[in-house]
C-alpha cells in the first residue's frame, strides 16, 4: 500500500537521481549528503545557500571587470573564476563547474567575448541549479512533515 510518505520518498528519490543523470550534480553532492544527519538536517541546504550567495557575488564582480572592452581586468576575472570553480566543485555543482573550466580558458587567452558568454552561462546554470535544489529541499521538508525519513539514495 502506498502511503503518502512512501510516495513522497519515491518522488524525492526519482528527482534526485534525475539531477545526477542530467548532469546538474556529481559525486561531491553525495559526499555532502553523507555529512547531514538528524542533528544537522539543514546542512546541505545551508552549504548550497552559501554557494549560491558566492555565485551571485562573484558574477557581479566579474561582470564589472568585464564591462569596459578597453579596460578588462582579466586577473580579477581569473580570480573570480578560480573561486567559483573551487566552490562549485566542493558542493558537487557539476554544470557550474564545467562552465568555469571553459571560462578559465577564455580568461587565459584574454577573450573578452568568450568570457562574457561564459559569465552569462554560469549565471544561468547556478540559477537553474538553485531552482532544482529548492524543489528537492521542499520535497525533503514534505517528507519530514509527513513523519517520514529522507531516503538514502545510492547513485551508481
Amino acid at each position, binding site marked *: 500500500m502506498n502511503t503518502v510518505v512512501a510516495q513522497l520518498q519515491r518522488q524525492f528519490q526519482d528527482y534526485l537521481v534525475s539531477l545526477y543523470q542530467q548532469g546538474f550534480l556529481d559525486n561531491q553532492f553525495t559526499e555532502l549528503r553523507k555529512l547531514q544527519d538528524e542533528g544537522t538536517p539543514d546542512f546541505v541546504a545551508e552549504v548550497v545557500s552559501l554557494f549560491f550567495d*558566492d555565485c551571485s557575488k562573484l558574477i557581479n564582480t566579474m561582470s564589472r571587470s568585464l564591462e569596459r572592452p578597453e579596460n578588462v581586468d582579466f586577473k580579477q576575472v581569473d580570480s573570480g573564476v578560480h573561486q567559483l570553480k573551487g566552490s562549485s566543485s566542493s558542493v558537487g555543482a557539476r554544470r557550474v563547474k564545467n562552465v568555469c573550466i571553459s571560462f578559465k580558458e577564455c580568461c587565459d587567452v584574454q577573450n573578452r567575448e568568450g568570457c562574457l558568454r561564459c559569465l552569462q552561462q554560469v549565471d544561468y546554470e547556478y540559477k537553474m541549479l538553485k531552482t532544482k535544489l529548492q524543489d528537492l529541499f521542499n520535497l525533503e521538508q514534505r517528507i519530514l512533515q509527513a513523519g517520514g525519513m529522507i531516503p538514502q539514495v545510492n547513485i551508481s
Partner: protein
Amino acid sequence: MASDGGVSCLRSSEMLNVGIGGMEPPPLDLDEVHVLAVDDSLVDRIVIERLLRITSCKVTAVDSGWRALELLGLDNEKASVELQRLKVDMIITDYCMPGMTGYELLKKIKESSSFRQVPVVIMSSENVLTRIDMCLEEGAEDFLLKPVKLADVKRLRNCLSGDVKLSNGNKRKLPEDSVTVVQASLPPPPPTPQPSLMTLSTDSSDSSPPLSPVEVFSSPLSSLGDDDVLTSSPECSPTPEESPIRRQKMGSPGLDQ
C-alpha cells in the same frame, strides 16, 4: 553562520574558545583532537569543518594564513605568546590563498619550535606534482586533492588518533578497534614522568621526540616507509578511484631528520 574576523562556523556555540586578546584558553581536553583549518573560501571552510566535526575533531576554521599564525601566536605582533597559543593537533590548509599561500604557512609552522611537530595537511584543487613534492619536502604530512571527501578526513583522523594516543600514553578514546589492538601490543611505556600537557603540539620544552613509540607502531605514516599508497595500510580507508593521484605520502618528516 559566519561570524567576524574570518573565523567561521555553522554553530558558534560549538566553537572552541581561543585564548586570544587576553582570554584564558579553556582547560585542555586531552580526549579531543583539535584541528585548525585554513581556507579562504567560506564554502570550503564550512565543508571541511563539518567533515572534521563528524570525525570527532574540535575545529577552528580561519580564512587566512595570517589569521592562523595569529591564533598560533606565531605572528610577531603579539607580546605574551604563551597565553595566546592555541593547542592544535593538526593543521589543514588550502594551498591557493591570497596573501599567504598554504605552502608559505607550512614553512612558517615548520620553522617554529612550538609547532613544527604538528602535522600539516595541504589541500588543493590542482593535482600538480611539483606542488605536491614541494609541500611534502617542506614537511607537509599529507596532500589532499579537493574536493575533500569524508574518506580522506577519516583517514587523516585515524592516523592522527594513532600518533597522539601512543605519544602521550593516556586514556584517549579511540573509535577504531584496530588502533586499540595495536595499543595492546605496545611494551610498557618508559617510566619517565609525563608532563601533563604532553601532546604533539605544545610540548616545546621536551626536545627529545615523544614520538618514539609512534616510530615503532601503528602510525601508517611511518610504517609505510617509501610506500606512498595508503591503501596498503589496514587502518586507512580505500583510495577513491577517481583521481589518478589522490595524494602522496611520506613518513613523518620529524622522525626522519
